[in-house]
């Protein structure tokens, strides 16, 4: 029976734990920072000197830590891309814009244990020779920004931040910057543009990779709140120890946000891959199961941008057999291990770790309408396919959900979504297209019958004219196979 493994949220919910510095210090706070700053250089057999900073970066690489913001990209690898030779200052930005629908894990850290984030952030900055860092927090976290600013002031007062931190000679300043209510500010280059005071239009890559041309065109690291907290624990226990938690290539713990039609929605910290999706939904230690008398209909495994799973789905996963050979195993939805790789192999992603559960009282078209409204509202509008397509899909679903659909709307929606993914400046294209692609294709029967029912209603009604059959088939292409 899997249980929570509270590494980051170890103390946050304990009675009497508060977010002030004294409480943090009583629980061993800032000792890991002290350890990092006093780490002696390692001398290799060939005489090479490995600095403290490099050692910490190596530990993070060894730990196999993958970004907790949604992409799951190797943190150590991301840090290694930073251009350390340009002569320009290196910046680090903590992405506290938590806006992925269904996600509420970073909020817990910020509101309950902000100093852990600061310690992890300061260690990460030290490891990357950063002397000026920013904490970009979503505007809606009004109290959170105040808490962070108070925490920063406390840290400064005790010399954990500022000039000559703990006498090490290392200087670092951190500023909090509040967002103003845009999901696209969670996109790393959108965030950078916003931080620079401009409209949050993400940058094209190439050439504007943040590791080379980021904030003010200087090398920049953008990391999620939870990722930075994990860095503290990696330095504390060592990369190899951290890698023992979780499962191979999916190391450590992550905080899962479970919401929707479960008895116990909330946040739970688990070792990556040690709990299955079914356990997270049904186990009394986590979601506690569906409401009485209800059956599972759909699950979104990683925030609304992730592709939905239909209840009863089975997946063919590649697994390494004990003899080392790759085999294919059929896995039921509920038995899917909740980690980065398995969920991706199953055709979706674990994203920000937000599981949204829908039972059989859900009208799928209405659920999708809700989701597309969000994306239509949040599209920045910079590039053509997303700007036009996101609102187009929302309008179509609104029409479908409100009784003016057509049987062909299912294919119509798939066509629109297919023309957005892969054609945009940033991953928002995928984010707004994948819900439509997955919901419509996996629940096609529901969408088509809803549309057909509306058409029948309209042709039966006296005022309706004949439905004009729109040509939906792909245009003939010269020379196409």
């Amino acid at each position, binding site marked *: 029976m899997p249980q929570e493994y509270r590494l980051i949220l170890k103390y946050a919910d304990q009675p009497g734990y508060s977010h002030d510095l004294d409480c943090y210090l009583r629980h061993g706070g800032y000792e890991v920072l002290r350890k990092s700053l006093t780490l002696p250089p390692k001398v290799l057999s060939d005489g090479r000197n490995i600095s403290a900073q490099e050692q910490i970066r190596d530990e993070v690489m060894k730990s196999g830590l993958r970004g907790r913001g949604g992409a799951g990209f190797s943190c150590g690898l991301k840090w290694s891309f930073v251009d350390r030779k340009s002569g320009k200052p290196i910046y680090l930005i903590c992405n506290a814009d938590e806006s992925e629908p269904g996600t509420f894990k970073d909020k817990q850290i910020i509101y309950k244990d902000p100093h852990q984030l600061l310690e992890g952030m300061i260690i990460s900055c030290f490891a990357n020779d950063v002397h000026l860092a920013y904490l970009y927090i979503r505007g809606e976290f009004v109290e959170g920004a105040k808490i962070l600013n108070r925490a920063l002031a406390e840290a400064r007062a005790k010399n954990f931040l500022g000039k000559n931190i703990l006498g090490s000679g290392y200087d670092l300043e951190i500023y909090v910057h509040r967002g103003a209510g*845009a999901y696209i500010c969670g996109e790393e280059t959108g965030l950078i543009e916003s931080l620079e005071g401009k*409209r949050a*239009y993400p940058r*094209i890559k*190439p*050439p504007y990779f943040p590791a080379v041309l980021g904030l003010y065109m200087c090398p920049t690291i953008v990391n999620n709140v939870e990722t930075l907290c994990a860095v503290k624990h990696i330095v504390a226990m060592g990369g190899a120890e951290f890698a023992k938690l979780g499962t191979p290539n999916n190391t450590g713990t992550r905080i899962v946000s479970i919401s929707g039609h479960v008895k116990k929605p909330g946040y739970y910290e688990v070792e990556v891959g040690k709990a299955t999706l079914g356990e997270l939904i049904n186990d009394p230690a986590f979601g506690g199961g569906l409401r009485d008398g209800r059956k599972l209909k759909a699950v979104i495994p990683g925030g609304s941008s992730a592709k939905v799973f239909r209840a009863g789905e089975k997946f063919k996963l590649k697994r390494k057999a004990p003899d080392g050979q790759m085999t294919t195993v059929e896995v039921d939805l509920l038995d899917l291990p909740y980690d980065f790789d398995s969920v991706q192999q199953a055709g979706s992603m674990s994203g920000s770790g937000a599981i949204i559960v829908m039972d059989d009282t859900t009208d799928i078209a209405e659920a999708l309408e809700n989701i597309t409204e969000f994306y*239509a*509202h*949040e*599209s*920045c*509008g*910079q*590039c*053509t*396919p997303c*700007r*036009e*397509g*996101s*609102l*187009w899909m929302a*309008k*179509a679903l609104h*029409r479908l959900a409100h009784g003016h659909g*057509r049987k062909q709307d299912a294919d*119509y929606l798939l*066509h629109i979504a297919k*023309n957005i*993914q*892969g*054609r*945009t*400046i940033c991953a928002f294209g*995928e984010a707004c297209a994948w819900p439509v692609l997955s919901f419509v294709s996996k629940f096609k029967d529901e969408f088509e019958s809803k549309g057909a029912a509306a058409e029948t209603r309209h042709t039966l009604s006296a005022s309706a004219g004949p439905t004009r059959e*729109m*040509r*939906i088939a*792909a*245009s003939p*292409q*010269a*020379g*196409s196979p």
Partner: protein
Amino acid sequence: MSTVTEPKPAPPPVEKIKIKVDGREVDVPKLMPDWQGKLVPTTMLQACQLAGVEVPHYCYHPKLPVAGNCRMCLVEFGLPAIGPDRKPILNEDGTPKIIRQALPYDPSLPRGAIACATPISPGMEIYASSPATKQMREAVLESLLINHPLDCPICDQAGECKLQEYSVEYGQSESRFAEEKVHKPKRVDLGPRIILDDERCILCTRCIRFSKDIAGDDALGIASRGSHNFLTNYPGKAFDNNYTLNTVDICPVGALTSKDFRFQMRVWFLKETKSLCASCGTGCNIVIGSREEKVYRYTPRENDAVNGCWMCDYGRLNYRWIDRSDRLKEVRRRRSEGPSERTTWASVLKEISEKLRTAAPGSVAIIASARQTNEELYLLAKLAKRLGALTDSIPRCGEADKLLLHSDRNPNSTGARLTGFLSAEIGSNLKKIADAVQSRTVRTLIVFGEDVARHGLGAPLLKRLDTLIVSDILPSSTAEIAHYVLPGCAHAEKRGTFTNVKGRVQKFMKAVEPPGDARPEWEFLHELVLNVTGQNGFVSIEGLFNQMAKEVPAFAGLTWAALGDTGVAVPI
């Protein structure tokens, strides 16, 4: 005698990369100039252009920073496969294996790269005409058209609209859009010369980048979010710099329109004539759009040595006077104090030639505008030499801006000097001439293209002359009292050359017919010069120019043909 330049040392060899465009191998330079002329890695779009393959695009412009937002230039491409040992993987026949790039999360779907911003790499294959590329373009066009208003019948841009053109070439013929279109502000008064239609705008941001990075006026931006994005000027600040109308040129659709040209003429009716702007000494290259002897608009023409592909608003709008109804259209003669009467060219030229032939040396002065052409000033210089005449032009100055508008508002001050018409600094002889008229040393004054009454030679003074010969295009107080009025041409009504402030000799062509009896000044000047000096010349502009080039040291080696479309620089 060759013009000017000594042989330059050979430039260093250009490093090239081999790639394939639509299956054809091409060698393209590794680096090419960016919008500022700096050498940067060649993009796929530039490589395709060199290979002769068009990649459709909206937001890209060679003279603006890259934006990459329209997504129209998406092309399918392939890259050489690299093995785990970092060495290229080869096919059975030894050629490098090329992998068609696909989406990382769905390898069955091709991945496109935006050609305007993606650098080429050795061995890359660009499939600019593959079915996948065509589908990507079709999809972008579909997206652009779903909210685009059906304004073609009333939109100025029709006929030169990239949305129309690409729809025909790459788009669909039917729309499947079944929703209500997004509505945005229409007929927005963006500034004194621009009207904006936000519904037509495809948000390519060319105008924003132009205004900020070229004109230096960060005046435009996008407001609101997502599909409701709309272009607007900075709140409370009208879009009003001297280059606003260039945004109308670069706008791919009819979102930004010129108040001056709006609804005036369908562009496919316009005859396009290569010409020059004559409003200052920069000499921006332009195209005159005219129909049936009426000029409808000026647009800039590309010349990297002069104006890039821009022109200023002041020069662009300075054409409406050409068809003023009070243009001088008649050859007129006045005998002493009597009224002037209409007459013929033959008659006045005969009389004038006689008067000049018999004039005492030093008794004639010539004031010719620095708006006259090189050829006209060259002919006037011959006359002046023969007559021992004092000469001058009227200086015309204004505030220069940081981009194109020069403080010298005459298009040909340099020409006036190089042709030998001016013997001293422009404007420095005016007082001498005025004194000479006063003292009756000068009895005959020839005026070309200036209202000298407003520049120190008032009517009472002019009335002391025996003969006042005026050639001009619009009525003036000088022409009013002239003994001979010879109606001349606007530069749009004749051919000729100007020399700009940097010494570039550029030619302009004739767009419209002059009104009434007006004639190009060089034509009747040629006759006068022949009659007075006995020197014959050529009756074609080409011949006249070539003759001038032989006789004027500064123009040595030039020929009319060699001037081409972009002119030739001479030392000044």
